[in-house]
């Protein structure tokens, strides 16, 4: 009894309690700090299986994210998606229009301790020349040979000048002995990245720190446990219960508004991404082949409304394919203002008068993904206001792609993702890229643009390239083969305690190497 009364007497007044409480706080904090060592493991999720750990086969985003952590490559990307050096001492140099020279950094080692040499690099890339059945061989069609000039310097020779080639040099380097094998055992293949593969289970992939890295330079997160969680609701639930520390993008945007309030242990971060959503038009179609219709639609779509309501504000309106963080973006372009009256008058002038309930009817094909479908329906209801009746046709992905490639489509909605080089314009808009050769799925053809894009690919001077692509973007803005909708942001829900994690524009997890728990 007395034992309890005594100290209480001293704290009787509120003032005393208030005065004491910061000290208690510090004490409490100190003791937890003392009791618990900082966590050094992180649990993350991927929304799909990792298809392969072989850098020669990885073409899907998830495989490449893991590749980025366990392998090292000649070139890598900075958070904005711009090229930077990887294991090269400096940026590669075009010694001739079709010959690229690279010099490796000193002291790079595989995680079995053996040094990484130019011969390993050559062997890795020559695999693509010799064997076309690797999924990634397609990116190295123009590669003719790789030569060693000395133990640290290599020359890549291409069929023709191709400035976009550098952005392909992100393949994880394999030891030359392994690069010659067709099948690799991922757990036994030495790699040179900050992490190494520890175990692979059907649903869990564990990475641990590469032991060859000196301890003081090692990432502070010693193990990364990747869970394959395909169900969005389950991912969300696992975040709430603390079974996951980090989920990037694959969380319903609707939940983001309230997630921090309801779960104080979580934090939402966001950052611009390399993702551009658009409406594509089949220009061979009688109706949408008419530029007046596309222009009117462009005025009638209220991008901001859709961004705010369906995308949770996680996007910014787009005027061109390249996002603002690209130096090649033409920032002078103004989006056509949202103006229903103007849209109507354009349609009237073009000879599409209002009939009973609509001027005409068009089909909009999209995938069955709920966000894409909601966006398509929102666009349909916006276009209804200027008298265009849009029939939304959601389709399973494989069939959707086949229909669009075959031209069995009027309007389609899609997103370009992860493009790094402006050569994407050639892939999407040049006459040589009509399907099945490329992705010019709207059959857009403009000789002037074709010429520009060819020149852009040949030109290795960065400044000249920029001006070429800016001109191309202006041309496209006049012809409106696409209506660009918005650049989507990347976002992540993370454990509030996690420090130092930043989002990369292409979604990779490179910054985990610098992240840590306090």
């Amino acid at each position, binding site marked *: 009894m007395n034992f309890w009364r005594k100290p209480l007497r001293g704290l009787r007044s509120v003032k005393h309690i208030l005065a004491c409480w910061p000290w208690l706080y510090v004490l409490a904090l100190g003791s937890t700090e003392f009791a618990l060592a900082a966590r050094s493991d992180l649990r993350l999720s991927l929304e799909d299986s990792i298809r392969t750990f072989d850098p020669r086969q990885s073409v899907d985003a998830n495989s490449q994210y893991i590749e980025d952590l366990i392998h090292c490559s000649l070139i890598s990307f900075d958070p904005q998606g711009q090229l930077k050096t990887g294991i090269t001492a400096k940026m590669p140099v075009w010694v001739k229009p079709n010959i690229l020279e690279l010099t490796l950094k000193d002291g790079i080692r595989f995680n079995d301790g053996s040094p990484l040499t130019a011969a390993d690099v050559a062997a890795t890339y020559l695999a693509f020349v010799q064997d076309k059945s690797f999924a990634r061989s397609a990116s190295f069609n123009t590669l003719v040979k790789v030569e060693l000039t000395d133990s640290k310097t290599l020359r890549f020779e291409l069929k023709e000048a191709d400035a976009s080639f550098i952005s392909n040099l992100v393949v994880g380097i394999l030891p030359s002995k392994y690069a010659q094998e067709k099948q690799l055992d991922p757990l036994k293949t030495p790699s040179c990245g900050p992490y190494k593969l520890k175990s692979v289970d059907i649903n869990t992939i564990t990475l641990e720190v590469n032991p060859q890295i000196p301890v003081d330079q090692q990432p502070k997160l010693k193990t990364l446990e990747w869970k394959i969680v395909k169900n969005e609701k389950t991912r969300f639930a696992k975040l709430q219960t603390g079974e996951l520390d980090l989920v990037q993008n694959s969380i*319903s945007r*609707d939940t983001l508004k309230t997630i921090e309030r309801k779960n104080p242990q979580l934090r939402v971060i966001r950052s611009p991404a390399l993702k551009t959503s658009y409406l594509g038009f089949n220009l061979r179609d009688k109706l949408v082949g008419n530029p007046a219709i596309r222009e009117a639609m462009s005025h009638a779509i209220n991008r901001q409304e859709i961004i705010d*309501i*369906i995308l949770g504000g996680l996007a910014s309106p787009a005027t061109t394919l390249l996002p603002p963080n690209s130096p090649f973006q033409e920032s002078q372009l103004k989006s056509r203002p949202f103006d229903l009256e103007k849209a109507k008058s354009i349609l009237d002038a073009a000879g599409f008068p209002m009939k009973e309930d609509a001027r005409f009817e068009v089909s909009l094909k999209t995938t069955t993904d*709920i966000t894409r479908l*909601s966006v398509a*329906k929102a666009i349909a*209801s916006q276009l209804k206001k200027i008298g265009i009746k849009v029939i939304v046709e*959601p389709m399973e992905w494989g069939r959707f792609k086949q229909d669009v490639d075959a031209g069995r489509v009027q309007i389609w909605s899609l997103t370009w993702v992860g493009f790094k080089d402006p050569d994407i314009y050639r892939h999407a808009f040049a006459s040589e890229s009509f399907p099945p050769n490329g992705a010019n799925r709207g059959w857009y053809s403009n000789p002037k643009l074709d010429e520009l894009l060819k020149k852009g690919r040949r030109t290795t001077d960065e400044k000249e390239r920029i001006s070429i692509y800016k001109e191309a973007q202006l041309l496209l803005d006049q012809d409106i083969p696409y209506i660009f909708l918005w650049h989507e942001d990347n976002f992540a829900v993370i454990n509030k305690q996690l420090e130092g994690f930043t989002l990369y524009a292409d979604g990779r997890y490179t910054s985990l190497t610098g992240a840590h728990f306090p």
Partner: protein
Amino acid sequence: MSTALNPQQRVWQKLRINPRFLLGLTVLGLTLFCALGAPWLARFPLGEAELVDRLCAPGSQHWLGCDTEGQDIMTIMLYGARISLYVALLTVTLSLSLGTFLGLISGYWRGWFDVLLMRIVDIFMAFPGILLALTLTAIIGPSLYTVVFAIAASGWTSTARLVRGQVLSVREREFVQASRALGASNRRLIFKHVLPAVLSPLVVHATFSLSSVIIVEAGLSFLGFGARDAILTWGGLLGQASQVELDQAPHLAVIPGLAIFTLVMSLNLMGDALRDALDPRS
């Protein structure tokens, strides 16, 4: 007393006082009423959506809230009742008539056709029904008729088995044998004796089939392979809800979920009651 009644009257007599049957009938009747009266009961025209209303909570404007596109859920539910019932009825009719036809033939004539048909039934039963639905959706596109066709394509087998079994036992009974000995034609035998005997288990089977079609259809929608027509079925709406977090819009999952639950449960109750009433032993 009861001997004066013919069999149909006797069954009705039993059903009339069965609370399970009455409850089931009421729910089914209400659903039908909603379905038929949708244009008058709905407070908003179908297809009208305001994006700003996305996922709005139930309130005075939208009694049952709004869906992901800002449509009034009550409107969708009312029109959806039509589509749900339509899909269920169409599917059951299709699979029932195909199954009955094949089961009759195979049970009545036996022989090589019977052997062949039973092998085909085995194949279809061993084939994961969901796969059929998934591939059909990819081939034809996600429409109502794909769903109907896909479910019916795997549903006819159980009917065929049931009917065949019944026919096999009926055709050996004395009264059938007797009329055959008297020279009755096959057609007469089938329509006069065999079919009526098969009818009561078939009615029960149909009722349960209706309820399972509704559940299966909802499951397909959940997997993203359901109908994606302008009007969603209840299952479709529930499938849509399964892509939205429960705490964001609980009404989106709760309303169609409860509706399906009630309808399926009442169909099952009716099935039970029918089974009891049609059972000649009771």
